[in-house]
C-alpha cells in the first residue's frame, strides 16, 4: 500500500485528466487551424466539388466541293429528354402518343437508367420532329421534367451519295477511347471512314466547357463566376474537297443498278473530281446511332455495299495495260514508233495465244493500241523483258498503294522475276507466264484507283500529283483556303513516248478503235477499254480515258463488274462524267477560265464570290447547339 500513497488515486486521476485536457486542446487547435486559418484553402477545394463542367461539343466542319458548294452540312436534330426527379410517370401515355412510340417505351428507358442520378436528364428519343418540340414548348407547364436538346447531325444537301468517299461518324469505341490522348469522352462521335476519318483532327474542332454552379441536388443554379472561366467551343475546320458535285452526281447516276467503281482525276493536280464505289449505302442512316437492322442488312448484302471497290477491288486490268507495255517498249528502245509487227490472228509461244478480232495484219504501236491487238503486245512484253516491264508498272504506281487520302487500300500485284521465283520456285515458271501480262491478264491485278492515277499520268505526260480528295481547309479567321501539300509524281517518261501512246488512245475513241461510243461532241476524248477475265462469271469491264485530248483536264478510270465488254458498259459512264465536268467549265462565264493557263485565277475569283456565303452559312450554324455532357471534373480533387 506504500505504492498507492506514493502514486495513488489522485495522481492517476490527474494523469488521466491531463491526457483528456491535452487531447481536447490539440483537437480544438486542429479544428481552429482547419476551419479558420486554412479555411480558404479547404473552401476552394470544396467549391471544386460543387462546380459542374459541361462539355460543349463543337460543330463539325462542313465539306465544300471544288466550286465551294456545300456537299456535307450539319443540321439540328432534336432529342427528347426526361429528368426523372421532376417527371411524373402519369405523362407516359401522352408523350408516347405524341412521339409515336409503343406503350411502355418510356418506362423501359427510365428503368434502364435507374442507376444514374435522377437529376440528370435521360435521352428518351433522338431525332424527334419539330412538331413534337413545339408541342413541348407550348405545354411546358403541364410537362414537368420533359425537355429537349439540340444535337447536330450530318446532312447531305446535294443528293450526292459518295458514301465511301465522305464516310460517316460513329460513336467512339472503347478501344479508340483507350488509345486517345484526352480529347474524346464516352458517347462522342468520331470519323469512322472516308474523309470523316482521315481529316478527323481538322473536322472535330475544339471542345469548350461551361462551368455551372450546382446545388446540393446537382441542379444548376447559375453560372460559375458569370462564365469567366468558360471556354467556347471552336467549330471544326471546313474542308474544301477536290470533287465536282456535278461530275460526282453524273458518275453515281451512271452506276445505277451496276456494281463497280469510278475515279476521275484532274491530271495536272492529282485532284480527284469524282469518286464512286457502287453500290453505295445511304449516309443518312449513319447520322446518329445506326439501327441494328440496317447494319445487319448492309453486312449480309451479297453486293457488299460497305466495301470500297475503288480502292479495294483488285482485278486484272486487261487491255488498259497495253499503253504501259507500249511506253516501256518505246522508252527502252525495244521498238520505234515505226516498228511493224504482224498479227496473223494469234501468237504461238509454247501454246497458241489467240488475238481477238484479228488477224490485224502488220501494224505500228499506235495502231496496235487502236485495235487493241493482242499479238502485238504478246510479243512486245517478251522483247521488253519481265523485270523492265514490271519496273515501268511500278513507276506508274502499280503494286503500291496510291496513298489517296481515305481509308484502306489494296496494293495489287505486279509480277516480276522475284515474284514468280517466290511463288513457283526458280524453276517452277516459264516465259509463257509472261506473255499474258502483255495484255493485262494473268497474275497482274490493279485497283480502279491505281488505274485512275495511271491514266492521269499518261494524260499529263508522266507527271502528276499524288491523288487526293481534299484540297485544303478554310482558315476560320481569314476565310481563305489553306491548301494541303501533296507529293508530286514523276515517271521520268519522255514526252515523245507519251505523245505516241496518247495518240494511240486517241485513235481508240476517234479512229477504228474499240471505244467509239466515248466520243463527246465538241470535245476530243482519248481512252482505252479493257476486259478483266472473270473465271466465276461474266467478265469485268474497264475503261480509262481523258479529255480534252489537246489539254487534258479530266482523266477517268471506270470498272463495271460482271458487265462483259468494256466499251459497252464502262465507256458511257466515263463519257457522262467528262461531259458533266467539262461542259460546265465551257459555260460562257467560265470560258475565260480555259484561256487562263491553269484556271488558278478563276478559282480565286470563284472563292471570293463564294466566301461571304460561306461565312453566313457557318455563322448560322454557329448558334450554340453543342451537345452537353457532364464531365467528371467535380470528382477530381
Amino acid at each position, binding site marked *: 500500500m506504500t505504492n498507492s500513497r506514493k502514486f495513488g488515486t489522485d495522481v492517476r*486521476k490527474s494523469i488521466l485528466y491531463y491526457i*483528456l485536457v491535452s487531447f481536447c486542446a490539440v483537437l480544438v487547435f486542429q479544428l481552429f487551424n482547419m476551419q479558420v486559418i486554412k479555411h480558404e484553402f479547404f*473552401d476552394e477545394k470544396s467549391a471544386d466539388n460543387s462546380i459542374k463542367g459541361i462539355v460543349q461539343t463543337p460543330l463539325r466542319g462542313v465539306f465544300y466541293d471544288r466550286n465551294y458548294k456545300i456537299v456535307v452540312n450539319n443540321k439540328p436534330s432534336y432529342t427528347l429528354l426526361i429528368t426523372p426527379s421532376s417527371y411524373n410517370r402519369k405523362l407516359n401515355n401522352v408523350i408516347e402518343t405524341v412521339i409515336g412510340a409503343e406503350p411502355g417505351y418510356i418506362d423501359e428507358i427510365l428503368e434502364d437508367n435507374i442507376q444514374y442520378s435522377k437529376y440528370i436528364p435521360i435521352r428518351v428519343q433522338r431525332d424527334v420532329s419539330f412538331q413534337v418540340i413545339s408541342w413541348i414548348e407550348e405545354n411546358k407547364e403541364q410537362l414537368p421534367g420533359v425537355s429537349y436538346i439540340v444535337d447536330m447531325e450530318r446532312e447531305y444537301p446535294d443528293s450526292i451519295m459518295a458514301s465511301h468517299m465522305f464516310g460517316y461518324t460513329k460513336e467512339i469505341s472503347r478501344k479508340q477511347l483507350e488509345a486517345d490522348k484526352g480529347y474524346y469522352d464516352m458517347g462522342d462521335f468520331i470519323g469512322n471512314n472516308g474523309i470523316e476519318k482521315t481529316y478527323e483532327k481538322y473536322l472535330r474542332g475544339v471542345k469548350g466547357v461551361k462551368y455551372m454552379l450546382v446545388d446540393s441536388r446537382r441542379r444548376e443554379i447559375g453560372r460559375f463566376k458569370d462564365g469567366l472561366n468558360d471556354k467556347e467551343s471552336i467549330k471544326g475546320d471546313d474542308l474544301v474537297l477536290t470533287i465536282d458535285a456535278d461530275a460526282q452526281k453524273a458518275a453515281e447516276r451512271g452506276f445505277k443498278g451496276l456494281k463497280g467503281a469510278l475515279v476521275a482525276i484532274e491530271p495536272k493536280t492529282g485532284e480527284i473530281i469524282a469518286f464512286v464505289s457502287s453500290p453505295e449505302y445511304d449516309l443518312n442512316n449513319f447520322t446518329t446511332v445506326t439501327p441494328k437492322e440496317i447494319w445487319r442488312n448492309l453486312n449480309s448484302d451479297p453486293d457488299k455495299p460497305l466495301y470500297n471497290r475503288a480502292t479495294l477491288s483488285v482485278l486484272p486490268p486487261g487491255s488498259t495495260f497495253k499503253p504501259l507495255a507500249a511506253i516501256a517498249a518505246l522508252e527502252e528502245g525495244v521498238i520505234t514508233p515505226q516498228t511493224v509487227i504482224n498479227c496473223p490472228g494469234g501468237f504461238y509461244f509454247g501454246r497458241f495465244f489467240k488475238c481477238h478480232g484479228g488477224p490485224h495484219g502488220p501494224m505500228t504501236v499506235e495502231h496496235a493500241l487502236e485495235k487493241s491487238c493482242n499479238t502485238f503486245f504478246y510479243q512486245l512484253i517478251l522483247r521488253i523483258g519481265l523485270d523492265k516491264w514490271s519496273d515501268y508498272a511500278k513507276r506508274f504506281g502499280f503494286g503500291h498503294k496510291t496513298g489517296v487520302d481515305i481509308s484502306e487500300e489494296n496494293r495489287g500485284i505486279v509480277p516480276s522475276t522475284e515474284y514468280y521465283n517466290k511463288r513457283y520456285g526458280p524453276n517452277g515458271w516459264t516465259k509463257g507466264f509472261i506473255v499474258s501480262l502483255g495484255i493485262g491478264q494473268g497474275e497482274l491485278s490493279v485497283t480502279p484507283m491505281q488505274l485512275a492515277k495511271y491514266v492521269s499520268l499518261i494524260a499529263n505526260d508522266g507527271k502528276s500529283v499524288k491523288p487526293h480528295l481534299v484540297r485544303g481547309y478554310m482558315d476560320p479567321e481569314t476565310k481563305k483556303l489553306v491548301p494541303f501539300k501533296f507529293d508530286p509524281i514523276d515517271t521520268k517518261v519522255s514526252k515523245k513516248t507519251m505523245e505516241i501512246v496518247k495518240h494511240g488512245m486517241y485513235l481508240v475513241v476517234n479512229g477504228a478503235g474499240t471505244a467509239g461510243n466515248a466520243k463527246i461532241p465538241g470535245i476530243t476524248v482519248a481512252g482505252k477499254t479493257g476486259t478483266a477475265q472473270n473465271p466465276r462469271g461474266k467478265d469485268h469491264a474497264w475503261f480509262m480515258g481523258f479529255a480534252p485530248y489537246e489539254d487534258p483536264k479530266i482523266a477517268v478510270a471506270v470498272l463495271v463488274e460482271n458487265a462483259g465488254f468494256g466499251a459497252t458498259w464502262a465507256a458511257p459512264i466515263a463519257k457522262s462524267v467528262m461531259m458533266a465536268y467539262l461542259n460546265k467549265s465551257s459555260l460562257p462565264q467560265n470560258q475565260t477560265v480555259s484561256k487562263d493557263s491553269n484556271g488558278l485565277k478563276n478559282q480565286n475569283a470563284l472563292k471570293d464570290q463564294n466566301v461571304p456565303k460561306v461565312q453566313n452559312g457557318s455563322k448560322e450554324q454557329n448558334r450554340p447547339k453543342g451537345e452537353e455532357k457532364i464531365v467528371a471534373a467535380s470528382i477530381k480533387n
Partner: protein
Amino acid sequence: MRPRSRIDYQLEDKFDVVLFLSVFLLTGIGLVAIYSATLHNPSASGNFTKQLFWVGVSTTIFFITYFASPRSFNLVSVPSYIFTILLLVAVLVIGKRVYGQKCWIDIGPFSMQPSEFAKVGTVLFLSMFLSREKTNIESIWSIITGFAIGFIPVILILLEPDMGTALVFLSLTVVLVFWKGISLFGLFTMISPGLAVFSSMFGTVPFIICLAAVAAGLFFFKKKLIISGAIFAMNLGAGFIFNFVFKYLSPHQKQLIETFVDPNSDPLGAGYNAIQAKVAIGSGGLLGKGYLMGNQTQLRFIPEQWTDFIFCVIGEEFGLIGSLIVVSLFFFLFFRLLKIASQVRERNEFNSFVVIGTLAVLFTHFAINIGMTVGLMPIIGVPLPFLSYGGSSLMANMFLVGIVANIYKNRKQYT
C-alpha cells in the same frame, strides 16, 4: 433518516444532470446530423427513422439500467463477459461480411455488432477481476490475468478484422490496469512494445529512436540487467514481429496503415476519405455552411457519412462553433466520468472501475473518430459515441452510461 432525506432531496443528488444532458444533447445532435447526411441518399433514406427508433430503445435501456439494483452489475459481470465472448466467436463463424469485415450478425430484420456489446462485458468482468481483494496488481500473475481478460476480445476482433474496435479494447485494458495502480515500471513494460510497433510503421529511423527511448527508460528504472535486457528484447521483437505480421495483413489493412503514414499516397483510394473529410470540415469555416447546405455532405463525397464520418456533417454545416459544442459536450462528459470514478473509489472499487472503463471506451472512440476526421489519426473506422448511426453502438454506450448514472445515484450507499 427518511424524513431528512426527503427534506434535502434535490435532483442532483440522485440524478447526474451533467452526465444526462451531455449524453442526450450529443444523441440529439447526432440525429440532426444523420438527417442531413441521409437526406439525399436514396440508399440510406430510412436511416434517420431507424436511428430515432434506436434512440427510443437506448433511452429505455438507460433508464432501466439507472433504476436497476446497484448490486446486479457485479453479479452479471462474469456471465455477460462469457456471453459476449461467445458472440464474438459466433460472428466469426456465422457473421455477415460487409466491406471485407465480419462484424455483423443478422437477427431477424436487424444486424447486430457483437463487438459493441463485448465492451460492456469486458468492462464489467475486468472491473470485477481488478476489484477482487485477492487481486494484487504487483503480482505478475494478476497483471497477466488482467491483460488476458482484455486481450481475448482484442484478438477475436482483430480476426474480423476490425482494427479500430480492437484498439478500444486495448486502451480499455491499459486504462483499467493503470487505474488499479500498476507500478510505472509495470505500465512501461506493458505499453512500450505497443509503442515499438507503432514507431516501426513509420520506418526504421523512428523505430530506432523508440528503442533508444526504451533503453533510456530502462536505465531510469534501474532494474536488474537481466530484466532490463528481457524487456528491451521484447521491444525489439515486437517491432520485427509487426513487420512480419504486416506481410500477412489483408490488403485493406495494409492500405489503412500506408495511408495513415502518407494520406496523399492514394488520393482516390483509401486516402480519399481522409482528404474529403478534411475538406468538409475545413470548408465549414467559423459558422458553417448552414444546416442541409453543406455540399460535401449533401453531394455525398464521403461514403456512408452517417456512420463513422458524422462529425464531418457537424464541422461542415455548423462550422467551428458546432464542432466546439460537440467537443465540449464530450469533454464535460469525460470530466464528469473521471470525477465520479475518483469519488466512488473509496467506497466501492468495482464501481470506480466500471466508470473508468466507460470513460476509456468512450474517450478512445472519440479520440480515434474525431482524430481521423481532422487528420490526426489514421482512417480507422470506429463510430463516434451517441452521434454515429447504428443501434448496437448506441445501445451499448447508453447501457454503460446508464450504469454510471446508477452508480452515481447509489454513490452514498455501502458506507
